[in-house]
C-alpha cells in the first residue's frame, strides 16, 4: 500500500481525514502492517519484524485476547547490537557495588535464596504506538504490540540492596545488563532509579515469566521489573547494580527517554519542550482488541467487543465504550482483576441494528481518576501515547 513518494500524510489528505483523527490510530496500521513481515526468532513465535539488529519485534494484536501474554509472544526491544546470545548460569553473577557496606556477587542460586515474590504486571515500551504520532517521528515505528501482561516471579530489589548495606548519603541506584554497543564510543545502556523508588516493595529482580525462565531475548537470566513504569527501566540480562551518591550523568537518563515536564507530558505538535524529566509512570490506556479495526459484521447478529485496559499502577475503575463516535458512552463489563499492575479485560455486548460504519471508541479511568485524552497527545520522542482510539467497524 505504501509506495515511493506516497507518505502517510498524502494518504491522510487523499482520504480526507483530519490530522487529529490520524493520531488516534485508525489510519496508519493499514499502511505499516502491510510493510511488516512475520519472523521467528529463538524462543519466539511468529512476531512482526521491526528491526533485526538490535532486535525489535512486535506482538500481533491477537495475543491480547488473552489475559496473560505467552512468553513466546512477548515483544522484544534491545538498544545495542551486541546482545547476550549465550549465558551460562554456572559462571553468571549479579554484582551489587558502589556506595554499599559490602559489595556482593550473587550466583543464580544465591539470588534465589531471597524471599520469592510475584505479581502480574503490564510491560510496555515507552514508544509503544509511536507510528500513530502526527507529525511523525523518528524511532521504532511501533503499532500497539510493544506491550504484554505477564506474571513475574523473582526477589525484591530492596532485599538484595539491603544485604549489601546501603550507605547513608546514597542517592541513586544504577542498573546495567550484559548487552554491549558495537563501538566503544557509544554510551553503554544503563538506567537509574532514585534510591527511595528503588526501595519500594514491588520492584523485583525477576527470574520467572509466567512460571518459566526468561527467554534470552527478554533478558535471561534476570531482569529488573518496575511495575507501573515504562519498560525502559526494566533492564534486561541485569548483571550490575551500583549504588551511587550522585545523580546519573548517563546519556540514557540525561538525554534519552525524557518527556516534557508538564502534567500531560506533551507539547504543541512539532514544538520542543522547555524543560524535560526522565520518563516514569505509564499513562492510562484502553484498547479494542476484538474485532479489529476495519472488521465487517452482520447487522442483527449479536457480538461482544473486547479489549484491555491498564494504568501506571493504579488499576482500572471504569471502561466506557461508545459505538457512535463519542456521542453516547456506556460502561463495559470488566473481567477478572489480577491486581493494580495487571491489565483488565473489558467486554461490551453489542447487536448492531442497522448497516453502516460505526466508530468505536473506548476510554478507561484508573482508581485515582487518570483517564485518556480525546485529542492527540504529542511529544518529540513519541512516548506516553494514550489518546482514545477510534476504530471503524463496518456492518452490512
Amino acid at each position, binding site marked *: 500500500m505504501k509506495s*515511493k*513518494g506516497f*507518505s*502517510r500524510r498524502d494518504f491522510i489528505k487523499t482520504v480526507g481525514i483530519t490530522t487529529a483523527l490520524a493520531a488516534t490510530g485508525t489510519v496508519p496500521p493499514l499502511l505499516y502492517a502491510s*510493510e511488516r513481515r512475520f*519472523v*521467528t*526468532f*529463538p*524462543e*519466539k513465535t511468529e512476531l512482526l*519484524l*521491526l*528491526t*533485526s*539488529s*538490535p*532486535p525489535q519485534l512486535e506482538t500481533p494484536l491477537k495475543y491480547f485476547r488473552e489475559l496473560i501474554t505467552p512468553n513466546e509472544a512477548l515483544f522484544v526491544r534491545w538498544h545495542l*547490537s551486541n546482545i547476550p*546470545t*549465550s*549465558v*551460562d*548460569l*554456572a559462571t553468571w553473577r549479579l554484582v551489587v557495588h558502589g556506595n554499599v557496606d559490602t559489595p556482593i556477587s550473587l550466583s543464580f542460586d544465591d539470588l534465589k535464596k531471597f524471599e520469592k515474590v510475584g505479581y502480574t504486571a503490564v510491560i510496555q515500551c515507552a514508544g509503544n504506538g509511536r*507510528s500513530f504520532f502526527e507529525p*511523525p*517521528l*523518528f524511532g*521504532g*515505528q511501533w503499532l500497539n504490540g510493544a506491550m504484554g501482561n505477564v506474571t513475574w516471579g523473582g526477589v525484591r530489589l530492596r532485599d538484595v540492596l539491603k544485604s549489601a548495606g546501603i550507605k547513608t548519603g546514597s542517592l541513586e541506584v544504577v542498573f546495567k545488563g550484559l548487552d554491549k*554497543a*558495537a*563501538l*566503544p*564510543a*557509544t*554510551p553503554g545502556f544503563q538506567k537509574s532509579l532514585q534510591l527511595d523508588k528503588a526501595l519500594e516493595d514491588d520492584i523485583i529482580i525477576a527470574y520467572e515469566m509466567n512460571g518459566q*525462565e526468561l527467554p*534470552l*531475548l527478554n533478558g*535471561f*537470566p534476570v531482569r529488573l521489573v518496575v511495575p507501573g513504569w515504562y519498560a525502559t527501566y526494566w533492564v534486561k540480562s541485569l548483571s550490575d547494580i551500583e549504588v551511587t551518591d550522585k545523580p546519573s550523568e548517563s*546519556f540514557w537518563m540525561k*538525554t534519552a527517554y525524557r518527556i516534557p515536564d508538564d502534567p500531560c507530558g506533551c507539547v504543541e505538535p512539532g514544538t520542543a519542550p522547555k524543560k524535560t524529566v526522565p520518563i516514569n509512570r505509564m499513562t492510562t490506556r484502553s484498547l479494542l482488541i476484538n474485532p479489529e479495526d476495519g472488521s465487517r459484521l452482520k447487522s442483527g447478529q449479536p457480538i461482544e467487543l473486547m479489549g484491555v485496559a491498564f494504568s501506571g499502577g493504579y488499576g482500572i475503575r471504569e471502561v466506557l465504550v461508545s459505538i457512535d463516535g463519542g456521542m453516547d458512552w456506556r460502561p463495559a463489563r470488566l473481567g477478572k482483576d489480577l491486581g493494580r499492575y495487571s491489565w483488565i479485560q473489558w467486554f461490551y455486548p453489542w447487536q448492531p441494528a442497522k448497516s453502516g460504519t460505526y466508530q468505536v471508541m473506548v476510554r478507561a479511568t484508573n482508581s485515582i481518576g487518570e483517564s485518556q485524552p480525546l485529542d492527540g497527545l504529542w511529544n518529540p520522542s513519541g512516548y506516553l501515547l494514550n489518546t482514545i482510539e477510534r476504530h471503524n467497524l463496518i456492518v452490512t
Partner: protein
Amino acid sequence: MKTTILLCIAVSLVYTALVIAGDQGFVKEGTRRSMTLPAAAISLKEGPGKDTTSSYCRICHSLDYITTQQKFPKARWQAEITKMIKTYGAPISEENARIIADYISAHYGTGG
C-alpha cells in the same frame, strides 16, 4: 563390544536429555542457554551512495532501521546522521555523511 554400544546409547540418551535444542536457533544445554539470531535480510535500493550507506550504518544496526522509518525531508535525516556521529560515536566523515543523507532522503525520505 556390546557394553561399548550400550554405553554409547546411554551417553547419547543423556546428551539428548541435557540438550533441548529448540528450533529457530535456541539451545539449552545444562546451565547454558544459547541462541543464534537470524541474519538481517534487508538490502537497500540501488542508487549512488548505497554502498557507503550500507557499510557505515550497518556497523551499529541493521538497515531496516532506515527502511522502517517514515518519510522525512533531508534536513531531518541530516540531523539523524549527526546524532549517530555526535551521540553514538559513528566514525563517519563529513563527506560520507553528505553522501548518506543524499542517498537516504532520495530513496527513503521525501527527497528534498
